[in-house]
């Protein structure tokens, strides 16, 4: 038996879809017995949701006001208290998990695997490096827990239908007050979430302005797609940072990805290489995006995109 502790991500009310992908990864460890830990101000609904996920043995839930904002400095000591007896401690490779898991690892005095993309054996895994230009096989030495963030785009979410028991935790670890959560500014939108959308339309520097990005929104609406962007488009202020796809943004795996006016820099491509079908629209036939595109169209986006939106009517 291999005991796995998996840290759930949530937004305060519901479970983040990445959690089910993390569980899928953990379930590939031979003999995995997976406990999901939920730390939240009000954990009830989130824990109940986690309990429905396949492969989950138990849900451990801990409530407290201090969990607001999911601060690593607050969460890490709780996880360390809980860590005893677990051979594996996993979290998602999202900004939540990347912030938290190295703090946990350091407190436990062990190293951490970032962006775990495949399970090759009990203690052997693969992960990408150099913006995905290379894949390295890593092996964790015996006698220490395996701490990892999971590259969730590499795994398909487990199904629901389980009814695992939920147990309340009383950890009583210290709650440091040197770090305080002030506020979140999240771009709430009715569009499909970029991370879990089955279709994503993304725009690059070529859009030229925030107003012109409207072309992307219209096409996305027609396709019921999520919306992404290159770093250049975010840096230029056309769209907010949460839309950035790539090495330092979101890593996504939609069935369909349409890149519009995006050149295809390696730092961008690493965020989309798991997409089912990549479509590229670019006026430069030499653009590197065409080297990875399944369907390419050379043309001016300002005429092609409205025409495409119209054609999908």
């Amino acid at each position, binding site marked *: 038996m291999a005991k796995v502790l998996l840290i759930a991500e949530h937004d305060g009310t519901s479970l983040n879809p990445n959690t089910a992908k993390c569980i899928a990864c953990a379930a590939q460890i031979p003999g995995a017995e997976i406990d999901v830990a939920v730390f939240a101000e009000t954990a009830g609904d989130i824990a109940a949701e986690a309990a429905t996920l396949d492969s989950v043995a138990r849900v451990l839930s801990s409530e407290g006001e201090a969990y607001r904002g999911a601060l690593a400095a607050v969460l890490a000591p709780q996880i360390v208290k809980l860590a005893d007896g677990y051979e594996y401690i996993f979290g998602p490779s999202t900004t939540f998990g990347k912030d938290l898991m190295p703090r946990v690892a350091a407190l436990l005095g062990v190293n951490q695997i970032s962006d775990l993309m495949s399970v090759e054996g009990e203690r052997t895994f693969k992960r990408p490096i150099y913006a995905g230009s290379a894949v390295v096989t890593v092996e964790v030495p015996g006698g220490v827990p395996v701490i990892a963030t999971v590259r969730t785009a590499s795994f398909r979410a487990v199904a629901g239908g389980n009814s695992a028991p939920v147990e309340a935790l009383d950890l009583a670890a210290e709650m440091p007050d040197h770090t305080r*959560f002030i506020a979140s500014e999240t771009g709430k939108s009715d569009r499909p979430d970029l991370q879990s959308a089955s279709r994503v339309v993304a725009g690059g520097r070529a859009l030229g302005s925030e107003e012109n990005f409207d072309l992307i929104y219209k096409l996305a609406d027609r396709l019921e797609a999520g919306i992404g962007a290159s770093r250049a488009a975010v840096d230029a202020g056309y769209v907010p940072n949460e839309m950035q796809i790539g090495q330092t943004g979101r890593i996504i795996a939609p069935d369909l990805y349409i890149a519009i006016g995006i050149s295809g820099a390696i730092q961008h491509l690493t965020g989309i290489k798991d997409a089912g079908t990549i479509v590229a629209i670019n006026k430069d036939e030499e653009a590197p995006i065409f080297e990875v595109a399944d369907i390419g169209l050379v043309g001016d986006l300002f005429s092609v995109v409205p025409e495409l939106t119209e054609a999908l009517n």
Partner: protein
Amino acid sequence: MEKILVGLKRVVDYNVRVRVKGDGSGVETEGVKMSINPFDEIALEEALRIKERGEANEVVIVSIGSGDAQQQLRTGLAMGADRAILVETAEAPDPLSGARALLEIVKRENPELVILGKQAIDDDNSQTGQMLAALWDRPQATFASKLEFDGNSARVTREVDAGLDIIEVDLPAVVTADLRLNEPRYVKLPDIMKAKKKPLDQVPLAELSVPDSPAIAEKNFEPPAARERGIMVDDVAGLVSALKDKGLL
């Protein structure tokens, strides 16, 4: 603030197309352009701006690496750092050992603020800042895109998947820099000359008595699964029918 400590890592330049060695033992670094990790450059730029605003007196840069990393430290000095420390080691340390080495430097220097890049673009680990903060038992503010000070605390805007988070941390603290924190300055020639006279101390890693940590072994390197180049279509009608063929419409 008396002092800001900034970490600079020497990495393969972000413009280099990295290739895996034929025998799978690593990636090709021979004769390849090396630079300061872009996120660390942003970290340094932020520290310099804080100092230039009169909110800090000294900016110290530190690199853990081989003697070659002196080049990157000299560039950092030319950007405006006051002095540099090279923690010398032939072998790149694992992240935990790196964080422990930085902790020893932190104990010697007593900075009120440590700014590191949010990740290094070679191993893409994104761990060092968080680990240092944990070992130091101090706050961490990762993925920072804005930094403001108010007496003994800092207000940090963080780029997170859902948008932006704002947190407040007591100093001393560790901040890790994201891309949009600032745009680093270009180094001017006279500054490169001046940088040659600035102090650069060398400390062998062994001298810091960092305990052994269980390193994760890197067994094999391989190129990523390649995506095949697909088809080109002539117009929107062609695109729509290609999408239909794939069952995507």
